[in-house]
């Protein structure tokens, strides 16, 4: 495939929730294929709204989002499923089927690639099983394939979450606070995994984070949101404490850092 993969473009995009809360306001943003973007902002700044607009989990109330030149459909259906097939998502709370084996969880990433009846009967084609196994290898836990998801540690569960996204063979990965329920050591492992996968496979990766030091350490490009508006967009290398102060609208404290001694 030679088509440009994983380009995202927001044009005048806005989300106003039914209760009147503004989740995103008139956003113009372009993300190039293969970029590793970290999105920061205090809670309620619209980080999740931004990610979830890309795969249609949140509907826009104005403007458009395009993935590879095609507008994201604003209702459930074939078109939206075709888009979601190319966009993997990783969640803070992992969202695994606890009572299923790891491999069966990863195979959920193949749903959009196989006929519905096969998926419902569990008759996965060999090719798709292979893809799922390779995804597990890439996150370094192939030996856990037949273990129940509930028997894994938090870090391992998040790796299964990443493998599930990889099994989609996606152009884009959206990670919504992927390390917020993990301890510091596991946090760094998962962040390194995400960076490595981004480099190895060239998958456009967007990660929501609320720890500033993590954003600086792993981000290539940092996007800052405040009250649903874009307030910062720049390289992670040149972002200053002053910029963070602007994004958060206050002085930041050690609560905003993962490693407190880094302050």
């Amino acid at each position, binding site marked *: 495939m030679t088509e440009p993969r994983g380009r995202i473009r927001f044009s005048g995009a806005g989300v106003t929730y039914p209760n009147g809360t503004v989740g995103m306001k008139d956003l113009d943003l372009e993300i190039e294929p293969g970029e590793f973007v970290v999105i920061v902002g205090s809670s309620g700044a619209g980080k999740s709204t931004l990610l979830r607009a890309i795969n249609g989990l949140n509907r826009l109330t104005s403007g458009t989002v395009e993935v590879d030149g095609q507008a994201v459909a604003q209702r459930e259906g074939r078109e939206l499923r075709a888009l979601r097939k190319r966009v993997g998502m990783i969640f803070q709370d992992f*969202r695994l089927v606890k009572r299923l084996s790891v491999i069966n969880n990863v195979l959920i990433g193949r749903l*959009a690639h196989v006929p*519905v009846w096969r*998926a*419902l009967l569990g008759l996965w084609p060999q090719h798709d099983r292979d893809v799922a196994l390779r995804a597990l290898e890439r996150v370094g836990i192939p030996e856990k394939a037949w273990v129940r998801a509930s028997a894994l540690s938090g870090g391992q569960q998040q790796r299964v979450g990443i493998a599930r996204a990889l099994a989609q063979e996606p152009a884009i990965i959206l990670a919504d606070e992927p390390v917020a329920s993990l301890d510091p050591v596991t946090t760094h492992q998962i962040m390194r995994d995400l960076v490595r996968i981004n480099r190895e496979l060239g998958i456009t990766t967007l990660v929501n984070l609320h720890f500033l030091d993590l954003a600086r350490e792993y981000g290539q490009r940092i996007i800052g949101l405040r009250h649903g508006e874009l307030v910062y967009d720049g390289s992670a290398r040149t972002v200053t404490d002053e910029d963070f102060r602007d994004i958060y609208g206050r002085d930041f404290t050690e609560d905003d850092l993962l490693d407190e001694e880094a302050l």
Partner: protein
Amino acid sequence: MAVSPVPDRPPRNWWLIGGVAAFLLAMTGWSAEGIGFSLIELMCNIGGGGRLLAESWPPDFAFLPRLAEPFMETLNIAIVGTVIGGILSLPVAVLAARNLTLGRIVWFADRNFMNVLRTLPDLFWAMLFATAVGFGPVAGALALSVFTIAVISKLWSESLESIDMGLPEAVRAAGGTWLEMLKFGAVPQAMQHYVSYALYAFELNVRASMVLGLVGAGGIGMILETQRANFEYERVAMIILVVLVAVLIIEEISEAIRRRLT
């Protein structure tokens, strides 16, 4: 930081409590009066019940072998009814769950369908199916299927409504269809409940098939009716004992299955 004292307990609304209590008392008194229920009369006549119990004792164990065949028929009716109803209750329950259904109209229609099923008694369904397929065990099994749908779909749709929607959303985000979202996102979270309710429905069906026997649906209920009509109370006692033991056994088995499910 200054610790603020625990605030005083807010005063109780004695008017409300008193009002509710008075209302309940009045309702009970009015209803008892309405059906001519009196504790004193009950005390005086309790001996009649005692006489019936005495006549039923001891249960006629010699009658036991003749119960084997109708009892098996009862079990068969209950099993067929539970399986058919158990399968049909799946879509009925899913469409009645607000978080999973396919739109307001479908949800509303399905809710009302469930209410109709629940409101009409199993005896009504037995009569209905008897006119369709004739009196006998098939009519009984069909009636119990409806009864099973009513029981399971009501309970299970509530379980489905209380699941965590994060997982179904993740399945959707991976490009899954509605059916795939159900299979991988919703059902795994409520599977244990489904099995529990199906076993519970089976238990109810074993009991209900006795009642259905009264209207000619076959099984042990039919024997019960003939023996009762002939004042063979020791045999009636035997039949009740058999059903009691059966229900207890089913209860034990389902408890064991439920424990292994977690």
